[in-house]
C-alpha cells in the first residue's frame, strides 16, 4: 500500500506513504505555522530538527501533540491543526521562545522581515507570561556578517546550511540547555574561522541573530561629501530581485527603475557590473582558450579544468579547504573588482578625478562582496578599488530612507562608458550563466565562426551539479557547473582524484547562484522565488540586442584605448589576481 488516507481539519485526503502531516496539510491548502522548519523545493534543502514545536497538531488517539513537520501520516489518522488545545499549546510554546528573546523589535535590523515577529503576530501574542532570565552572548562582528546570538532561537537552519549544503562546517550548536548557542569551534569569532561569508546562514536565519554588516550610513556620508565623486555599479542579480522589496511579484525586472533610484539617491554616475562581467568573459575566456590550446598542443603541465573565480565565497572556500589546488581557478578577478579597478584607473584618468576623490559603491546580492572589497590585494596604497559593497536589501532601505517612491519611478538607462553590457553579462546572476557567457565568446574566438544559437539550455537549470558537452568545431568541450559549496566540493574532490573529465567548471557558492545570494531580499523558504528570479535574468538576456561579451562596443573601446588585448600586461595587473593558502 503506497497511499495513506487521513483527514485533516475534517477534510479527507489521500497522500503518499511517508508524507509528513505538514506536507499533507499544505497539499489541501492548510498552512500549519512553522518556525524552525524550512524546505527549499528542487534544491534538496530541508531543515526539520523538530525543535521549535510551533507546528504541533492534535492527532486523535495520540496522548501528546504531534510536531507536523516530522510526523509521518498513517492510515485513518484524524488531525486537527487548530483545536483549542493546539492553539493554547502553540501560544505557550511561542511565549516560552519569546521569554528568552530581546523585545527590541523596533530597532532590530530584521524588523519587518523576521519570521519570529510575524509568527508572534499571527499567533496573537500580547503578553509573555514567563518572566525569567534571558541568555546573553557577546556580539561577533566580521567583515561581512554579524552574529547577535541573543536573538538566536536555535532553529539550526544556519547550521544546516553551513554544514550540509555548503560543507563549510563553521557553525555548530555548542554547550547545553540554557547555555546552548550556535557558534564556530572553540567559540572563536567568525573572522578567525574558515567562514566563506557566503551568507547563506543570513539568508535563512528567521530572526535578527545573523545579519549583514550594514554600510548604508557610510554610503550616505560619501554621497553628501561635495569633494567626492561617487559612482555606483549594480550586479546582474539585483535587478531581478529588488522589486520584491517594493511589492512587485518575484521575478519582476526593475532595471530601469533601479537606475532611476540610484540617480535620485545622488550617485554621480550609475554604472553596471554587467559591463565588468563582459570584461571578465574577455579575460577568463581568453585564459580558457590559452590553457586549452596548450593542452591540445600536448602540454602536460597545463592546469585543466579551469574554474571560474567570480564568486568571493568560493574563492575563500578553496583557499581554506583546497589550497593545494589554488593554481587551477582562473586568475581573473570578479566583476565587482574588475569594475573597481577600471573605475579607479581608466575612468578616473579619463575624467581627471584623483583616486582618493573617487568613491566606488557596489550594489550586490551578496554579503561576501563586503569581505572581498576589503582584501588587501584589491587596494592601491591602502585605497580600495571598491569602497563599499551594499546588499540588495540595504539598497532597498536606502531608497525608502530617501523618500523615493520606487514604483512611480521612470525607467532610465545606465551611464557610459561603464554602463553598457550584453546579455552575456546579465546571465552572470544565475547558476550556469557565467559559463554560458564564456562559451558564447570562447566559441567564436576559437572557431572564428558565428554561433548558430545563443541559448544553451543544456547549461541552465537548478540541479546542483550539471554537465554538458559543447562542440567546439569538432573538439568536445566538457563543461561542469556546481552551485552550493557542497556540490563544488564534490567536483573538486573528483579533480583531485584525477577523475574529472571537465575542461571548464563554473562554481557559484549560493544555491541558484547570485539570484539566491545572501544579500538578496529574504525568500522565507520559498524556492519558487529563486526560480522566478532566474527566469527574469534569462528574459533580460533575451531582450538585449547584444548578447556576446566580445561585441560590447565599450569593451572593445576599453581594450583599444587602454588595455591593449586580453591578458596583456596591463590587463594582468588590473584585472587578474592571485590566491592564498589560508590553512
Amino acid at each position, binding site marked *: 500500500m503506497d497511499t495513506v488516507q487521513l483527514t485533516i481539519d475534517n477534510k479527507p485526503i489521500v497522500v503518499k506513504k511517508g508524507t509528513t502531516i505538514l506536507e499533507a496539510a499544505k497539499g489541501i491548502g492548510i498552512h500549519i505555522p512553522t518556525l524552525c522548519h524550512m524546505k527549499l523545493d528542487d534544491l534538496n534543502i530541508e531543515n526539520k530538527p523538530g525543535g521549535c514545536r510551533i507546528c504541533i497538531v492534535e492527532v486523535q488517539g495520540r496522548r501528546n501533540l504531534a510536531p507536523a513537520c516530522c510526523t509521518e501520516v498513517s492510515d485513518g489518522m484524524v488531525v486537527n491543526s487548530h483545536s483549542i488545545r493546539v492553539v493554547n499549546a502553540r501560544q505557550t510554546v511561542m511565549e516560552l521562545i519569546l521569554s528568552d528573546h530581546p523585545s527590541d523589535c523596533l530597532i532590530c535590523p530584521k524588523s519587518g522581515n523576521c519570521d519570529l515577529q510575524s509568527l508572534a503576530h499571527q499567533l496573537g501574542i500580547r503578553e509573555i507570561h514567563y518572566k525569567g532570565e534571558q541568555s546573553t552572548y557577546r556580539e561577533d562582528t566580521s567583515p561581512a556578517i554579524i552574529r547577535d546570538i541573543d536573538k538566536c532561537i536555535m532553529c539550526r537552519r544556519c547550521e544546516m546550511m553551513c*554544514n550540509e549544503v555548503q560543507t*563549510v*562546517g*563553521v*557553525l*555548530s*550548536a*555548542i*554547550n*547545553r540547555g540554557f547555555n546552548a548557542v550556535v*557558534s*564556530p*569551534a*572553540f567559540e572563536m569569532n567568525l573572522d578567525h574561522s574558515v567562514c566563506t561569508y557566503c551568507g547563506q546562514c543570513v539568508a535563512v536565519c528567521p530572526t535578527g541573530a545573523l545579519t549583514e554588516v550594514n554600510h548604508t550610513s557610510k554610503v550616505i556620508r560619501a554621497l553628501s561629501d561635495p569633494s567626492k565623486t561617487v559612482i555606483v555599479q549594480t550586479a546582474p542579480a539585483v535587478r531581478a530581485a529588488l522589486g520584491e522589496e517594493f511589492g512587485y511579484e518575484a521575478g519582476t525586472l526593475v532595471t530601469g527603475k533601479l537606475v532611476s533610484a540610484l540617480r535620485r539617491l545622488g550617485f554621480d554616475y550609475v554604472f553596471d557590473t554587467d559591463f565588468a562581467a563582459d570584461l571578465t568573459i574577455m579575460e577568463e575566456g581568453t585564459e580558457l582558450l590559452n590553457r586549452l590550446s596548450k593542452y591540445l598542443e600536448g602540454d602536460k603541465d597545463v592546469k585543466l579544468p579551469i574554474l571560474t573565480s567570480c564568486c568571493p565565497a568560493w574563492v575563500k572556500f578553496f583557499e581554506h579547504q583546497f589550497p593545494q589546488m589554488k593554481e587551477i581557478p582562473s586568475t581573473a578577478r570578479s566583476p565587482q573588482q574588475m569594475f573597481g579597478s577600471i573605475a579607479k584607473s581608466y575612468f578616473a584618468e579619463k575624467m581627471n578625478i584623483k583616486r582618493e576623490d573617487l568613491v566606488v559603491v557596489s550594489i550586490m546580492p551578496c554579503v561576501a562582496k563586503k569581505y572581498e572589497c576589503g582584501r588587501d590585494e584589491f587596494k592601491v596604497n591602502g585605497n580600495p578599488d571598491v569602497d563599499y559593497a551594499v546588499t540588495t536589501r540595504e539598497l532597498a532601505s536606502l531608497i525608502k530612507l530617501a523618500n523615493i517612491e520606487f514604483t512611480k519611478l521612470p525607467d532610465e538607462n545606465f551611464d557610459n562608458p561603464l554602463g553598457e553590457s550584453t546579455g552575456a553579462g546579465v546571465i552572470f546572476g544565475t547558476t550556469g550563466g557565467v559559463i554560458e557567457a564564456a562559451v558564447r565568446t570562447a566559441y567564436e574566438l576559437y572557431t572564428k565562426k558565428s554561433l548558430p544559437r545563443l541559448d544553451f539550455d543544456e547549461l541552465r537549470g537548478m540541479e546542483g551539479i550539471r554537465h554538458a558537452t559543447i562542440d567546439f568545431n569538432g573538439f568536445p568541450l566538457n563543461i561542469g557547473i556546481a552551485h552550493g559549496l557542497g556540490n563544488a566540493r564534490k567536483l573538486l574532490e573528483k579533480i583531485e582524484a584525477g577523475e574529472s573529465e571537465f575542461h571548464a567548471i563554473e562554481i557559484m557558492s549560493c544555491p541558484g547562484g547570485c539570484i539566491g545570494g545572501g544579500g538578496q531580499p529574504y525568500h522565507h523558504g520559498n524556492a519558487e522565488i529563486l526560480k522566478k528570479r532566474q527566469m527574469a535574468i534569462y528574459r533580460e538576456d533575451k531582450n538585449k540586442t547584444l548578447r556576446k561579451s566580445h561585441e560590447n562596443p565599450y569593451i572593445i573601446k576599453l581594450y583599444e584605448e587602454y588595455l591593449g588585448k586580453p591578458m596583456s600586461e596591463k590587463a594582468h595587473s588590473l584585472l587578474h589576481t592571485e590566491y592564498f593558502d589560508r590553512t
Partner: protein
Amino acid sequence: MPKIKLSENTVNQIKEVCTEFNNKEGELINVLHKVQKKLGYLPAEVQEVIAKELNASVAKVYGVVTFYSFFSMIPKGEFPISICMGTACYVRGAEQVLSEFKRQLKVEVGESTGDGKFSLNCLRCVGACGLAPVVMVGEKVYGRVAPSQVKEIIKEYQEGCPSGNAKTA
C-alpha cells in the same frame, strides 16, 4: 586559548583510536571517550586532529565535547572528583556537598587544584540514585555523602591512592 603543540606520539595515539573506529563520523562519541581516557582531557588541538581523521567539522566535534559534561577540555587532576547533580542527588543535598568540596579545595567547578592533585566537576546521574547524594573520585563511588565527610574523603587521597583504581589514565 593558549595553543599547545601535540607531540607526534600523541597525534599518532589519536589517529590510532580513530582507525580503531574505522574513521567513522558516527563513532565520534566513542572516539572522544577513548581519547579522553588515554590523554586525560580533550584540548582544542586534539579535537582538530579527531575532526580531520573523522572528516567532521571541528565545530561539530566541539559541539559534542561541550554538550556532554563528561568530556573536559582542561586537564583533570590526578584524582578527578565528580559530584552528581542529578535530581535525586540534588534534592538530597548534593549542592551542600559540592560547596564543601569547593571550600576545602579552594577551587571552582571545572578547575584543578594548584598541585594538579584534584579537579572538581559536576555530572548528571551515575545511575546510583539509591545512594544519593553520590560523589565519584576517579572510578570509585561514594554514596550518601554528607558535607561532614568531605574532609575525610580528600584526606584519603592526599595520603596516596587508597583503593586501587581511582587514578585515571
